């Protein structure tokens, strides 16, 4: 059974956290994720959950306390955005290398500068090599559903890695949409109790977590951690299947929207996938064979699966909501193109940068991108890579 309601993305994630009732939540407020710890502490004050909430003095501390609590044997989490994630940098890597299955509700916001509070993926993309699993949501519903799957993925013995559940700042976190909520008991049954095998407060069985490693061990430890990330792919798929069986809403590593016969595909992550789908519906009515590949799981990166999914189209637009300042596109395009090359799939791939710091991205922009892909394919039009969409410029950029 499920019940229908309307909620913002922040409310939806806080609702999921109440249902899971984890042991410890250290948090420090930052726009636009502030509501998550605020709503959780309200639930706690009202006696609706008994998570130990720790108001800390910074995000450096919130992630440190999350790692510490998880090491002690407690199911732990925190929430943050933007500069808050940047301040956690060191501890993100510690959480992953110490194999702590803690969770982080990330509400994506741009990183400074110029200082700005609106959505793009520069925070999450910046943390892409910290060893965290990263799952991105298009809607509040997906943010909710993804969060309930977080611990069953992270705590699986084949994984034991931290997990970041991401949603777009303001667009998803603050906009209110319809949502289907699971029953409390069903969520508790799905997530289960946390019974770690080894933890610091296990009296009589002493362990040391995060010991100094000389060069003779550190490289082997990295490889073992990398293998856990590779293993997490099958676990993410398994958990999604179980979630669908229990709650009816299904997920994959990515969603293929009207791509089966598509000549041109837009590969995109987060809330703007909704805009892209609307544009695809409009264009399909006019006879264009277009589709959307919405990436859900960015870490581990499903390179081979994406390459296979794109193998039958003629051109792909890879949409970046971040700037890598490397002169040749963003992280998504780099990885997708590497995957295509590795798999010997020689299609046209154009990288576009959109929506930085909350810049609007509309169906008209999607139309123009598909038009350009068609031009690239049929007329061999030479296009500039990582062109900015919806940018004021003196020349055509």
């Amino acid at each position: 059974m499920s019940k229908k309601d309307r909620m913002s993305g922040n409310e939806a994630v806080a609702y999921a956290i109440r249902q899971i009732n984890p042991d410890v939540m250290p948090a420090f407020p930052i726009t636009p994720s502030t509501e998550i710890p605020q709503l959780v502490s309200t639930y706690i004050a009202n006696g609706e959950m008994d998570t130990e909430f720790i108001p800390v003095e910074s995000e450096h501390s919130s992630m440190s306390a999350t790692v510490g609590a998880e090491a002690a044997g407690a199911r732990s989490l925190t929430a943050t955005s933007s500069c808050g994630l940047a301040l956690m940098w060191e501890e993100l890597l510690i959480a992953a290398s110490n194999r702590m299955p803690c969770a982080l509700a990330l509400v994506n916001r741009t990183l400074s500068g110029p200082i700005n509070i609106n959505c793009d993926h520069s925070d999450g993309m910046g943390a892409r090599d910290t060893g965290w699993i990263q799952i991105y949501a298009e809607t509040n519903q997906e943010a909710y559903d993804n969060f309930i799957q977080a611990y069953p993925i992270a705590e699986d013995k084949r994984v034991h890695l931290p997990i970041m559940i991401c949603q777009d700042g303001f667009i998803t976190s603050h906009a209110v949409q319809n949502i289907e909520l699971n029953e409390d008991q069903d969520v508790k049954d799905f997530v289960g109790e946390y019974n770690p095998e080894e933890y610091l407060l296990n009296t009589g069985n002493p362990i040391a977590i995060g010991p100094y490693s000389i060069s003779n061990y550190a490289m082997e430890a990295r490889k073992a951690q990398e293998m856990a990330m590779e293993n997490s792919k099958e676990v993410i798929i398994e958990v999604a299947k179980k979630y669908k069986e229990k709650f009816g809403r299904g997920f994959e590593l990515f969603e293929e929207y009207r791509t089966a016969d598509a000549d041109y595909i837009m590969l995109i992550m987060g809330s703007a996938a909704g805009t892209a789908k609307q544009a695809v519906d409009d264009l399909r009515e006019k006879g264009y064979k277009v589709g959307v590949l919405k990436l859900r799981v960015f870490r581990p990166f499903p390179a081979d699966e994406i390459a296979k999914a794109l193998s039958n189209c003629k051109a792909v637009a890879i949409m970046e909501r971040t700037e890598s300042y490397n002169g040749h596109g963003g992280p998504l395009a780099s990885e997708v193109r590497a995957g295509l090359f590795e798999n010997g799939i020689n299609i046209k791939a154009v990288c576009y940068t959109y929506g930085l710091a909350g810049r609007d991205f509309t169906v008209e922009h999607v139309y123009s991108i598909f038009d350009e892909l068609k031009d690239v394919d049929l007329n061999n039009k030479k296009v500039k890579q990582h062109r900015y969409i919806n940018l004021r410029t003196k020349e055509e950029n």
Partner: protein
Amino acid sequence: MRTDVNKINETTPYEDLTEGLIMFAGGTSKDFMTGEWRTNTPIFNAEKCKQCLLCAPVCPDGCIPVKDSKRSEFDYDHCKGCGICEKACPFGAIEMIEGVDPCKEK
């Protein structure tokens, strides 16, 4: 996943290491011979020593064992040769010499 960490060494393949290099034991730092890092070595002269014990508490690595109110020979397995004890000794009973191995230097 509890493993006898004494069976892990520098030839162990990565698949057999503990997850996140967790140590399934306590107090294992004493097994790590950090004295190898030493480039200077304190030499204890028992004849000059008045057992005032000013040296023992200033050692950052606890390498001056004290038993029955008397200090004994340095713990060279862990002494890093910082020389603080030499500065603390009022009686010139500790002398710093160059090198790692006090036996060879003697």
